C-alpha cells in the first residue's frame, strides 16, 4: 500500500479484556516497529521486527503485551487483560533499510485504545 495502515483506528475495551491491534506496513519494508504514545508525550518504543524475527522487545511494559509478525509483513500487537494504564495511542512504523544508515521510519495513523 501507499503508507502504513493500522486498524482499528479506535478501540474501546473494558478492563480485563484482550485486544489485538493490526499493522500493515509499506510493501517491501523489512523493519517494523511498535510505539506507545501516552497523552501529551512522545512515542515510546515497544518492540522491533526485522522480517518475521522479533529482534528487540525491551520496551514492552509487561508480559501482557505480545507482538508477532509471522510472515514478515502484517504485524499484530496483542494486549491481554487490559488495564487503564494501557490507554494510549499505539503507533506502528516501518522502514525499508536493513542497514543502520538511511533508516527512515514511516508511521501509521495509530490505534487509539481507551480502557474503561
Amino acid at each position, binding site marked *: 500500500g501507499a*503508507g*502504513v495502515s493500522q486498524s482499528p483506528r479506535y478501540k474501546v475495551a473494558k478492563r480485563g479484556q484482550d485486544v489485538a491491534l493490526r499493522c500493515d506496513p509499506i510493501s517491501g519494508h523489512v*523493519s517494523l*516497529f511498535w*510505539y506507545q504514545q501516552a497523552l*501529551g*508525550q*512522545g*512515542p*515510546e*518504543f515497544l518492540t*522491533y521486527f*526485522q522480517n518475521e524475527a522479533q*529482534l*528487540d522487545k525491551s*520496551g514492552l511494559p509487561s508480559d501482557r503485551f505480545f507482538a508477532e509478525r509471522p510472515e514478515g509483513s502484517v504485524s499484530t500487537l496483542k494486549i491481554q487483560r487490559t488495564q487503564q494504564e494501557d490507554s494510549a495511542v499505539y*503507533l506502528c512504523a516501518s522502514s525499508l533499510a536493513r542497514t*543502520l*544508515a*538511511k*533508516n*527512515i*521510519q*514511516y*508511521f*501509521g*495513523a*495509530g490505534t487509539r485504545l481507551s480502557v474503561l
Partner: protein
Amino acid sequence: AQSVSQHNHHVILSEAASLELGCNYSYGGTVNLFWYVQYPGQHLQLLLKYFSGDPLVKGIKGFEAEFIKSKFSFNLRKPSVQWSDTAEYFCAVKIASGSARQLTFGSGTQLTVLP
C-alpha cells in the same frame, strides 16, 4: 539510556514570526537525528533528518535544523511561520551504531500559529 528533551511544551506565534524549537539529547556517541511533525488529525510525518555531513539540514516547507555536536542539540528553525504550520513537532534520536534500531522521541512541542 538516552533521552531527548524538548524545552518548549507549547509555543504560540503570529504569522510571519520566526521559529526556533529546541531539542537536546543525552547520548555521547554517534547519532542520527530527526524532526517529525504531526498535523491535527494526521499521522507523524518526517520533516527533516541528519545522518552525517553538513550539520545544517534543510527539510520540507522551509524548515531547517542545525546539529551542534558540542551542545548535543538539533534545534528546528523556520524564518517565517504560516498558519498552516500549526502542529505538534517531535524531535527524535537514533543511535547510529550497535544493534538498536528504535527512535527515542522528545515529549513534543505544540506550535500554534495565529493568523
